[in-house]
C-alpha cells in the first residue's frame, strides 16, 4: 500500500484562494471555496474498438465559491483562477452575482431565508492508503491485459459477439477553505465493468458484471473473474423466458438488495427533500418501516467503496448514519444548508457532480446489515418464487414510497430448489414499507457495488455504492 499524495497544484493555489476568500469576506458574511484537482484515466477495450481517455466522470480541475449575505447563499464556479490575481477574480464573482441579484429584485423574487454556516476553526489533511495511483499506471500493459480478457470472453462461446471492458480510475484531490477552515483530502477510486453482447437465434441481449473499490488500478487484476461472471450472466439471459406477472416470494442477491436500499430509502431520506416536503420519510421518523431484520446504514464511512471519502463537498466530515434500525426509521442524511433549515446536523452527504454543480444531499454508500441465514436455507424456504440477480436500473419515488427496480434476471425456485429456469428482464414494483416489512431472512453475506452512477431526478450524476446481504422478501414482479 502507498499514500495517495495530495495535489501540488491545489497546494500552490491555496494562498491565492485564501486571499480570494479574504477579499470576498469584506462583502459577505460567510465565504467558502471548494477546489478540486482530480486526474485519472478511462480505458475501453472491445473486439471492435479501443479508447484511452484522461477524463472520467470524477476528473475535474476548478473551484466553486459559496458566499452568504442577508439569508441567501450564492455560488460562482470558475476554472481560470490566477493566484496572483485573487482580487480581480473576487470582483468578477461579485459582479456576476450582483447582476443576478438585480434580476431577482427586478422580478420580485424573494429569498428562502437560511442561517449562517458554522465556521469554527478546523483542519484536516488526509492522504488515504491506496494500492497504486492512476497516474503511475502502465496503460500499455493494462490495455494488453484487458484485451486478453476480452479475447477470452469472446472465445468462451460462439454466441458471444463482443466483450466490452471499461476500466476507470481517478485520483481525487479536494481542498475546502474558509476564513477558519482548511480541509484537504486525497484518495483513489477505481471501477471496472464488463458488458458481453450475445445472440441466440433471433434473440440478442447482454450480460454485465463489475467491480469497484476505493483503491487504485490494481483492482483491474480482478477483471478476468468479472469477464467470466459477465459471460455467465449473458448465457442465462439468452435462455431466459418472460415472467408471468404476479406477486412472488423473492430472494435478492446483494446487488439487488443494494438497489432496493438505494431506491427505497436512500433517496427517501435525503433531507433536502424534507425541506421541500418531497419525502414521505419526514413523517415516519421513529415509526416502523421494515421488519426487525432491516437495519440500513448510509455514509462515506460505513463501507470502503467509491462513495467513501474524508469530507464532503461542503466541508462536513464523513459519517456513518444508521437510517433504519431493526425496522424503525431513525433519521435521514443531510447536506449543510438543509441542516440549517431543518435545525439538524449535517451528516457529510453534501455532494456535487463536480465544481460546476450545486451541492445537494446525496448518498455515498448505502448498505443493509447482514443477517445469520445461509443462501441455501433461504432458497429451501421458498415454495415458488425467484432469486433475483443483476441490476439494470432503478427509480426513486420518495413522495409516495413507490419503487421501481429493473432487474436483469430471475432464477426460478420451486419447492425449495433452483430449477434452472431463468426469466428476464424483471420489473419489481411496489410500496416500499410493504417490501421492507416482508423481509423475513437475511444472509451472512455483505458486499457493496459501485460501478453505477446516481442521479437526482434526471441529472446531477455522482458516484455511489450500495449493497448488503441476500434478502428474502415478497414483491410484485412483472
Amino acid at each position: 500500500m502507498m499514500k495517495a499524495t495530495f495535489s501540488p497544484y491545489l497546494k500552490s493555489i491555496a494562498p491565492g484562494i485564501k486571499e480570494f476568500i479574504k477579499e470576498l469576506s469584506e462583502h459577505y458574511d460567510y465565504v467558502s471555496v471548494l477546489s478540486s484537482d482530480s486526474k485519472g484515466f478511462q480505458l475501453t477495450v472491445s473486439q471492435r474498438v479501443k479508447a484511452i481517455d484522461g477524463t472520467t466522470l470524477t476528473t475535474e480541475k476548478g473551484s466553486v465559491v459559496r458566499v452568504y449575505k442577508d439569508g441567501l447563499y450564492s455560488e460562482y464556479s470558475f476554472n481560470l483562477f490566477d493566484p496572483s490575481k485573487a482580487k480581480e477574480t473576487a470582483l468578477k464573482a461579485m459582479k456576476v452575482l450582483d447582476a443576478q441579484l438585480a434580476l431577482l429584485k427586478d422580478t420580485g423574487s424573494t429569498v428562502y431565508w437560511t442561517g449562517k454556516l458554522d465556521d469554527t476553526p478546523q483542519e484536516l489533511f488526509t492522504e488515504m492508503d491506496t494500492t497504486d495511483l492512476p497516474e503511475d499506471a502502465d496503460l500499455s500493459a493494462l490495455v494488453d491485459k484487458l484485451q486478453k480478457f476480452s479475447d477470452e470472453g469472446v472465445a468462451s462461446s460462439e454466441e458471444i459477439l463482443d466483450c466490452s471492458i471499461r476500466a476507470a480510475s481517478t485520483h481525487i484531490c479536494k481542498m475546502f477553505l474558509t476564513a477558519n477552515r482548511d480541509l484537504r483530502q486525497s484518495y483513489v477510486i477505481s471501477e471496472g465493468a464488463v458488458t458481453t453482447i450475445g445472440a441466440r437465434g433471433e434473440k440478442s441481449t447482454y450480460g454485465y458484471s463489475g467491480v469497484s473499490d476505493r483503491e487504485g488500478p490494481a483492482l483491474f487484476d480482478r477483471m478476468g473473474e468479472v469477464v467470466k461472471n459477465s459471460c455467465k450472466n449473458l448465457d442465462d439471459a439468452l435462455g431466459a423466458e418472460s415472467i408471468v406477472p404476479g406477486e412472488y416470494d423473492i430472494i435478492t442477491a446483494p446487488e439487488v438488495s443494494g438497489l432496493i436500499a438505494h431506491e427505497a430509502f436512500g433517496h427517501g431520506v435525503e433531507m433536502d427533500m424534507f425541506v421541500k416536503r418531497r419525502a414521505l420519510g419526514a413523517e415516519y421518523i421513529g415509526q416502523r418501516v421494515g421488519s426487525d431484520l432491516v437495519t440500513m446504514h448510509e455514509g462515506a464511512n460505513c463501507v470502503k467503496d467509491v462513495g467513501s471519502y474524508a469530507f464532503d463537498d461542503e466541508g462536513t466530515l464523513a459519517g456513518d448514519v444508521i437510517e433504519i434500525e431493526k425496522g424503525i426509521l431513525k433519521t435521514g442524511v443531510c447536506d449543510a444548508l438543509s441542516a440549517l433549515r431543518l435545525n439538524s446536523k449535517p451528516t457529510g452527504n453534501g455532494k456535487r457532480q463536480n465544481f460546476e454543480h450545486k451541492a445537494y444531499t446525496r448518498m455515498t454508500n448505502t448498505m443493509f446489515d447482514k443477517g445469520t441465514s445461509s443462501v441455501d436455507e433461504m432458497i429451501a424456504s421458498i415454495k415458488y418464487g425467484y432469486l433475483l440477480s443483476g441490476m439494470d436500473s432503478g427509480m426513486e419515488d420518495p413522495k409516495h414510497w413507490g419503487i421501481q427496480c429493473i432487474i436483469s434476471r430471475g432464477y426460478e425456485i420451486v419447492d425449495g430448489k433452483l430449477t434452472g429456469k431463468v426469466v428476464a428482464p424483471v420489473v419489481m414494483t411496489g410500496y416500499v414499507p410493504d417490501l421492507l416489512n416482508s423481509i423475513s431472512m437475511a444472509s451472512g453475506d455483505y458486499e457493496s457495488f459501485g460501478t453505477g452512477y446516481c442521479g437526482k431526478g434526471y441529472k446531477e450524476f455522482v458516484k455511489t455504492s450500495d449493497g448488503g446481504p441476500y434478502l428474502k422478501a415478497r414483491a410484485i414482479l412483472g
Partner: protein
Amino acid sequence: MTDKIIELLRQSDADAFEVTDKVTEGWEFYFIGHKLDQNRAKEVEHIEVTVYKKLEDGKFLGSASDEIAPTSTPEEAKKIIQDLCQRATYVKNPYFELNSKNVTVETKDYGIEKTARDYIEVMQKIPETSTEYINSYEIFAEKTTRRYVNSEGIDVTTTYPSSMLEVILNAKNDEHEIELYRMYKAGSCDKDSILKEITDSLKFGKDKLIAKPTPNLNKTTVLFSTKDPVTEIVTYLCNKTHASVKYKGYSNWEIGKEIVEGVTGDKFTVRGLKELPNSSNNTPVDSEGAPVYDMYFLKDNVPQNFWGDVQFRYYLNVKEGCIIGNYCAEGGTTPEAKLREGNYLEPVEFSDFSISLIEGTFAAEIRLAYLHEGGRVTPVSGGSVTGDLNELLKNVKLSKEQKQYNNFLVPSVIKMENVTVAGSEE
C-alpha cells in the same frame, strides 16, 4: 491557451489531432416554492485534445484524449501532449480520416440573462390553486462558444444557447399529496409553451390523486401520448442507424432492408434535422467540424443512412455524414382523434421509460395512466408496462399530427397493440 496548445500539437509527434475549446457562461436559479433557495453562476473553459498516431504503416490509427486545463503552463501542456502521443500507440484501431472540409459559419450572440428572466417570469404566472401548485423548480441558462480545430485544416467557432427547467408539481386532496416531475430543455425560454405544458401537467396531478389501481390487462392496446415514451421510441430508431452502434454490432439493421417483417400498421420515416425551432441542439457544425445537414435515417421502416461520428462512418464506408442532434419522425395518415376511438390504456407518467438498445425491450412502472373503456376514462396508477419493439413495430399507428419536444418533432401519439400491462390490483 488554445492557440499555444495547437502550436505544441503541430510541433509534436502526433500524426493528426483535434482540439475542442468550450467556453461556457451559465446562470442558475433554484427555487423552493417561489422563494429563492440559491443563485449560481459559472464561467468556465474546457479544452479537450485528441492526438492520433499512425501504426503499422498506416494500417491502424491509435488515439488518446485528455483535457488540458486552461491554466496549464506551456510546459505542462507539452507534457500532456507527449503522454498522449505515447498512449495513442497503445490502442490500435482501424485507420480512418478526420473531417477536412472547413466551413464558415455565422456567429451570433445570445443573452443568458434574458432567458433566465423569461423562466423566472413565466413560473410566476403558472395558474396554481390551493390543491395544484409548484413545489420547487430549477432554472439553467447557458451560452457556450465552441471552437473546433483539427490537423486537417478545420478551424470553426460556433456559439449556441441552451436552457433547462426542472419543475416539481404537487397536487393534493384531503387524503394525500402527490408530485409530478418535469424537465424541459430548449435553446431559450418559450414562455407560452412552458405555461401550457405546466398547466396541462397540473391536470395530471389532479387525476393522479383519484387514480385507481391499474387492472391486470395482460396484452392490450396502449396509446403513448407524452414526451418520454414517444421520444424514447424515436431515439431507439435513430440509435439503431447510428454508425457506432452498427459498427459495434449492437444493430443488425441494414441499408435498404426493412427493419421488421409483416407490418400491418404504419411505418416509421425518421430524419435528422440541422435545425428545429428553439432546439438546444441547433449547431451548424457538429463536434467533429462537419457541417450539419438534414438526412433520412429511415424511410417507411427501411434504413437509408448510417450517421454519426466520422470514425465509425469511415469504417462502414459512409463517406458523407455528420453528428445530428435534432430528430423528426413523420406523422401517419390517421388523425389523433381517430386513434383515440375504442378501448385502450394511455400511460402518461412513468417512473422511468427507457428502451434497451440491444434488445429493443422496455419495462416501466406506471405512475399515471388513463384507461379508456366503453367511452369512460378512468385514471389508474401502479403496475408496469412492458414490450418488445421487435414485435410491437409490426402493428403501430402514428398520428397525423406532430408535436415538438426540444430537439424532437414526433407524432403526437403512437398507438401499439399487444403491449403487456401488469396491474397493481390486490
